[in-house]
């Protein structure tokens, strides 16, 4: 058993810094790189891509990034764990093997975790009486059955552990929890029992700190952003984990960014609900047990974490076609910038009424003035410019499309000194909504396959 492992965060979402994982494997020693690609919206985008092309549906950045990583990971014995497989982890594996082939790399083992995708099982499950009631509204999923685009279960760490036990150099999953990607190597290397809840919680908390990439190493740091050095070369966080469940958050030397108690605390508070009940498939972690302590420059010790038994459920996230939206904007300048933007908004709304268009919501915001802070933002005496941003959402695509054509005419028909319509008419975009539900764990069979090239 190792007495410590270093797990590096390589990606916080699909679209994060492309070369972050490369720097994690080349700028210092690490044992694992975890790469989180999936947000709820990502799954529905990937599902649509897969419907258009059955060999797509995964994070396309990933094989490109692997091209950079592959020459290093075998030599340095670094293993990669990622949920970038999206709704097609098998195709993702094939794409990575193709990159390995081109580089002449053989003997590479890729583990693929499946079983999270229940879109093809939905009707059977419903027929069995599984209602998949919405956790917020309690409505049964049959209400939106025809509109469903994707449906996935959030799997935990255990299938990844199995892939690691079977020798996988790279583990590709679909919808696995972000935290499971970090917890899995700890279970594997330290031989933790699946029901050692404090340990499961410790690895889960480490995962929460790593899952948003540089957001724990100086990115988006409201504490004192000016104190964060060299953001252009920001180092992504690394968890140095120990068998007792404690770990240190750090980053490679010769990188920018900052790891401090404050940066780690901000990430710990990110997108949590009741801190005593951070629920994952692996455990319930108690965030009120976490202790953090600065142990040196860019080094924070995290310890004392406790947990409770996991629930008998997996969380399901289904995405469904909800309607359409479009958002357009125009920029108004001095004099009377704000008054003119408000007048233009009224003119536009009158036109939309005259055209008898049906929308669920019309929303106007004044970017540069108060689009984020609303009533909390004082309006200055004199305003040099303001962006009128107006959006609609509705069930009828045609109506949203007509709205898109109503903005540009304001330039010649409305208040003066207006610009900023270079982008053309806003087109209707699909609005995808989410359906959170629970499903009994016994109904889900995660599958793990490890293949060598």
């Amino acid at each position, binding site marked *: 058993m190792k007495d410590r492992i270093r797990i590096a965060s390589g990606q916080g979402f699909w679209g994060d810094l492309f070369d972050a994982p490369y720097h994690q494997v080349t700028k210092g020693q690490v044992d694992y790189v975890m790469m989180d690609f999936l947000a*709820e919206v990502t799954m529905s985008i990937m599902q649509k891509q897969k419907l258009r092309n059955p060999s797509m549906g995964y994070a396309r950045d990933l094989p490109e990034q692997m091209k950079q990583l592959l020459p290093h990971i075998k030599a340095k014995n670094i293993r990669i764990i990622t949920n970038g497989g999206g709704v097609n982890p098998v195709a993702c594996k094939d794409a990575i093997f193709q990159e390995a082939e081109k580089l002449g790399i053989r003997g590479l083992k890729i583990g693929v975790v499946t079983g999270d995708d229940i879109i093809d099982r939905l009707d059977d499950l419903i027929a069995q009486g599984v209602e998949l009631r919405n956790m917020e509204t309690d409505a049964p999923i049959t209400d939106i059955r025809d509109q469903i685009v994707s449906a996935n279960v959030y799997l935990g760490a255990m299938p990844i552990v199995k892939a690691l036990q079977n020798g996988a150099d790279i583990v590709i999953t679909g919808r696995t929890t972000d935290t499971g990607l970090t917890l899995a190597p700890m279970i594997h290397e330290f031989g933790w029992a699946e029901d050692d809840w404090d340990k499961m919680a410790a690895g889960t908390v480490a995962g929460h700190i790593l899952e948003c990439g540089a957001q724990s190493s100086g990115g988006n740091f409201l504490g004192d952003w000016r104190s964060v050095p060299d953001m252009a070369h920001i180092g992504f966080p690394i968890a140095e984990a120990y068998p007792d469940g404690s770990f240190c958050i750090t980053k490679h030397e010769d990188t920018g960014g900052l790891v401090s108690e404050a940066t780690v605390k901000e990430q710990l508070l990110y997108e949590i609900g009741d801190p005593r009940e951070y629920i994952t498939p692996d455990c319930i972690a108690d965030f009120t047990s976490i202790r953090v302590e600065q142990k040196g420059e860019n080094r924070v010790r995290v310890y*004392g974490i406790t947990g409770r038994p996991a629930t008998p459920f997996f969380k399901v996230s289904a995405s469904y076609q909800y309607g359409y939206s479009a958002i357009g904007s125009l920029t108004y300048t001095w004099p009377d910038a704000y008054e003119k933007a408000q007048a233009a908004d009224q003119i536009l709304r009158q036109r939309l009424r005259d055209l008898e268009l049906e929308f669920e919501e019309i929303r106007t915001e004044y970017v540069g003035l108060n689009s984020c802070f609303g009533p909390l933002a004082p309006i200055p005496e004199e305003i040099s410019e303001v962006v009128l941003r107006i959006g609609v959402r509705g069930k009828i695509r045609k109506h949203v499309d007509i709205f898109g054509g109503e903005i540009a005419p304001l330039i010649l028909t409305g208040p003066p000194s207006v610009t900023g319509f270079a982008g053309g008419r806003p087109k209707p975009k699909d609005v995808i909504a989410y359906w959170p539900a629970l499903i009994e764990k016994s109904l889900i069979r995660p599958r793990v396959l490890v293949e060598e090239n």
Partner: protein
Amino acid sequence: MAKRRIRLIEIAHARSGDKGDAGNVGVIARDERFYPVLIEQLTVDTVKKHFEGICHGTVERYELPNLGALNFILNNTLGGGGTVSLKQDAQGKTLGAAMLRMEIEVDESLLDG
């Protein structure tokens, strides 16, 4: 004891994000001596009032004394949440900064200490 009126940002920092249609705002004391001030002044009622016109639902507050922090859930705040919302800040990323504009009263001695 003399009080001074300050903005929350002087004694705390924050991070925010989304949980469905709710915003989550974590507020962290810049020094442990300020944590009792957060407990006393950032109540469910004062926070709800601060976010009037932004938060249209209930406010929940959770204490994390171990981190000198409070976590707030602002329900019905994001215009339908994530992908449905028409808001510029559909994911509540700036709610943390908005929280730190709040004006509070603090003992002078605590600030100079």
